[in-house]
């Protein structure tokens, strides 16, 4: 009975970063509990489209297959999310797959998320402890703080919040919610806090906090449930205090 059941995928494909996208429909045999990735694997195994024509296998990115690496994000039925945790049984048919539009497409469903990693470098989303000798243990962190900071550390740079944000687009330089929330994470760390002012100054520019328009799509879309808008509002408070402190020039930077 279930042997004859099929699943239809309508996939937005693109052969090359510079070429025009096109749609291709695939009909593949249904299996119980299949996710979008197992569907894509089936297409890769037998790359024949719904018209029975042989085609190139659909290309996509993946890594962990358990929603912690962020590599397999794509737009599934209009919603950006990870394809590993998108269960076919819970999706409306036909399943429409498209690459995220905020990022340049490498090929088919694989996009280039470099801009997010560049943003992480820009805001110095790390704790600088490298040196030539052992610095010893750092200061302790209060448990109450560790609990909310841990939530922020769940970010996997998947790009869904940038895709959902109406202010991250070709007309704006906004780096998006994810790297901003990382500023809050590393500013909350007892050793990372030493560079707090530097990180805040970095996001007080054309690409930073000012790009937020409070549509709050990011917090609704984040697959890890990170309180992104709380992070942005907290940074708004921090940068307000930072700018009041250095309104007539800062004693720190003379």
């Amino acid at each position, binding site marked *: 009975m279930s042997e004859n059941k099929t699943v239809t995928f309508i996939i937005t494909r693109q052969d090359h970063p510079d070429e025009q996208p096109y749609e291709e429909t695939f009909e593949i045999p249904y299996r119980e509990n299949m996710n979008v990735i197992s569907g894509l694997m089936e297409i890769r195994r037998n790359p024949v489209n719904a018209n029975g024509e042989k085609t190139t296998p659909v290309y996509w990115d993946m890594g962990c297959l358990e929603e912690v690496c962020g590599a397999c994000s794509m737009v599934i039925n*209009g*919603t950006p999310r990870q394809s590993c945790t998108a269960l076919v049984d819970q999706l409306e048919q036909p399943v429409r797959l498209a690459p995220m539009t905020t990022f340049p497409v490498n090929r088919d469903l694989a996009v280039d998320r470099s801009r997010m990693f560049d943003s992480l470098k820009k805001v110095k989303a790390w704790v600088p402890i490298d040196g030539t000798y052992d610095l010893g243990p750092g200061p302790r962190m209060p448990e109450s703080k560790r609990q909310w900071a841990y939530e922020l550390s769940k970010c996997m740079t998947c790009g869904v919040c940038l895709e*959902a944000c*109406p*202010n991250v*687009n070709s*007309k*704006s330089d906004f780096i998006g919610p994810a790297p901003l929330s990382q500023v809050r994470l590393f500013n909350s760390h007892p050793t990372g806090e030493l560079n707090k002012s530097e990180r805040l*100054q970095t996001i*007080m*520019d*054309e690409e*930073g*906090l*000012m790009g*937020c*328009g*409070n*549509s*709050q*799509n990011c917090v*609704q*879309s984040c697959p890890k449930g990170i*309180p992104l*808008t*709380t992070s*942005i*509002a*907290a*940074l*708004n*408070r*921090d*940068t*307000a*205090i930072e*700018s009041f402190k250095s309104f007539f020039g800062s004693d720190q930077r003379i």
Partner: protein
Amino acid sequence: MAGTRGYVNRRLHSLLGVIPIGIFLIQHLTVNYFATRGPEAFNAAAHFMESLPYRYVLEIFIIFLPLLFHSIYGVYIAFTAKSNLGNFSYFRNWMFMFQRITGIITLIFIAWHVWETRIAVGFFGAELNYQLMEGILTDPFFFWFYLIGVVSTTFHFSNGLWSFCVSWGITVSPRSQKIMTYASIIVFVAISYVGVRTLIQFAYGA
């Protein structure tokens, strides 16, 4: 620092919307509300505002310059957004889009309103009084034009008050932002009533 200029402008935009423009809006609607007490009361209140000392300084620094900055920068903000309500029809995303749409409507309305009741009046020496507004608002087209303009302005201010609180880091937690949502709805209903009631007074004398 050149890098922070954009950030400072954005914060200034947010601040000017509340102080002084928002304060002026409430004052303006309140003075107009005198119309509900009859033409004499309105004329007396309007005359008092007109005869304030160093009136041009007040107009330029409290109204025109902040308004000019807020509107020009606001148009830039509105056109850098790319609506995605189709796939993300959340309440705040609707508010985000309405804020930009009402901003543009308000700009058109205020440009016309300032021309009609301030600049044209100032140039041609007409008297700003109850009869002038009655003449404008008894025309059904202009009554609806003003109604849409006023409600769009009050919405833009009320919702702007909410985002002002976020942009300045006053409301950080989701709970405080939710409470502020309710507060901004109350502000919207209250000042819309004041504005619309005045319009009805001029149009229908009721």
